[in-house]
């Protein structure tokens, strides 16, 4: 999976981040900064949106939640380790814990920052950028453990490392389960 000039990219980003972040830093609280950066990354307007009741829309355990991307079988089942979005996940699947593949179980909070994977959606053949946000503040769910490592890197490259407990940015860093949220299309291959 070698990519062109990774070091150049890294250094570019480092310099960019130094400037950007120091500007952002002025007059911003840690949490709101996390919120904004997280939102920017997610393309969402505000963060966090808790509590959001999506029960009416998609009650846990209803088939509705089971094939959200119109794919039959394990690749379309968020409670399966083979679900296409799980190509770089490491943890308990929130879909098995009272949450869904995009929302946390009741009473937990979602960590705004996390690691990123790129997975292929068998339904449209596209590569998608997936954000594996952890749900935090309750002890481990201990159901549907799943570890897949496409593009995973060791912890010295945090944004690509699924070994890290990403509850680091949540009110409680205690890990409960992991989601798999689509951030957008990556590229056709």
């Amino acid at each position, binding site marked *: 999976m070698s990519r062109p000039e990774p070091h150049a990219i890294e250094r570019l980003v480092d310099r960019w981040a130094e400037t950007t*972040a120091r500007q952002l830093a002025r007059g911003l609280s840690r949490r709101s900064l996390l919120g904004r950066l997280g939102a920017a990354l997610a393309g969402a307007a505000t963060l966090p949106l808790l509590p959001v*009741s999506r029960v009416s829309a998609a*009650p846990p355990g209803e088939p509705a939640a089971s094939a959200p991307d119109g794919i039959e079988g394990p690749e379309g089942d968020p409670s399966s380790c083979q679900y296409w979005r799980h190509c770089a996940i490491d943890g308990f699947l929130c879909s098995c814990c009272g949450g869904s593949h995009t929302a946390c179980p009741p*009473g937990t909070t979602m960590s705004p920052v996390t690691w990123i994977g790129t997975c292929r959606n068998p339904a449209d053949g*596209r590569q998608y950028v997936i954000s594996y946000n952890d749900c935090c503040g309750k*002890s*481990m769910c201990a159901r549907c453990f799943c570890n897949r490592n496409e593009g995973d890197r060791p912890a010295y490259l945090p944004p690509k490392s699924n070994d890290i407990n990403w509850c680091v940015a949540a009110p409680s860093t205690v890990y409960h389960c992991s989601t798999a949220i689509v951030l957008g299309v990556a*590229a056709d291959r």
Partner: protein
Amino acid sequence: MGVLGRPGGTFAADLEEALFVRIALVVLSACAAAIPAVAPVRSGADAATPASLPAETIGGVLAAPPLAPHQVWVADFVLARTAGFDGDSGQMLGMLPAGVGAIAPVFAQARNEIYLPETYYSRGSRGERTDVVTIYDAGTLAPVSEILLPPKRADIVHAMALATLLDDGRFLAVANFTPATSVTIVDVEERRLVGEVATPGCHLVYAAGPRRFFMLCGDGALLLVTLDAQGAEQSRTRSEPFFEVLGDPVTEKAVRRGDEWLFVSFDGLVRAVDISGEAPRFSEPWSLLDDADRAASWRIGGVQHLALHEASGRLYSLMHRGGPDSHKDPGTEIWVYDLETRTRIQKITLRNFLGAFLAQQIGMDGGVLLWLLERVVPSPGADSIAVSQDENPRLFALSRNAGTVGVWDARSGSFRRYLANVGIAPGALQAPWR
């Protein structure tokens, strides 16, 4: 504490800034890592191919589904939690971490709350002890309040009769053991600790009226304690012993039907306690076993061997064949009794949970393999049972070894489904909602 090697800046400002920089780096280099990916998609392709999935929102948290009778909660002493499951869909609903020691959640439908007595040590397993009642919103499963308790709450492995809400729904009674026995009273309406009732020689708490509870004493007597409007002790009555503590003791795993509490003894005698009056009334005991049953050495047993469907007056008893002292052994059958006629009206033979568990491990939730495994693998039997209280009741039976709950139609006895992987060391079951 200064930031080393940076004599220039003050710690706070310096670190704060470093912090922001790091956060930015993490997030932005995430984009970088995705750079080869986010290369512009050729416009032509867009027109040709189906619409792509939209970007989804980060930060969502589900509410718990509406309270329903077929929801069952399973305590787990290794995971130190109680977890809720939907007996119809099989889905996990959510969980409550429970600190160290006994897991004794009290479910209060009228207030849409769950009261969880908890114990914590400042260093997990050592240090300073703190006991609290954590109040959870049953709709969000998030803690909304906390009430400090004297650090005395009892720790009994399967937490039967360790905490109960009195019938007025206001006063929570929590059993203490230090090894002195007493009861802590909490006002869940006013969110305050009321105080402690000393109850020498008597242990465990059973609700027995708007502001009344009873306990079982070491000599087989029953201690009835009435509280006043503020939750302070108003009066107490201690009965004569109503069973033989050493001879044929009742288990503490009693079920309640209105003004009647039903206890069952090791030898299968049903001892009913009527709490409608000033003093408790004990009716003549009757046996779950006939001579043929005894001859075949059928006995009651399990972690939680008794369940009741109030409306229909059906009593469910987990049974096994075994010798003396087998009162905690798992059961192979569930016998159903009609409380009016005091007769057994049904036997439900339990399926092989372990076979189901193994099949599930292999990724098969049904079909030929399950059928085969259920017959090949030795059956561990069931340890705990519970029954829902709706007019279409479910019977839940847990196998601890298999970590699996079986769900039956409580009236017809027909098998409905398995709930697999409910925990690592599951114990007691609760089906609290109506």
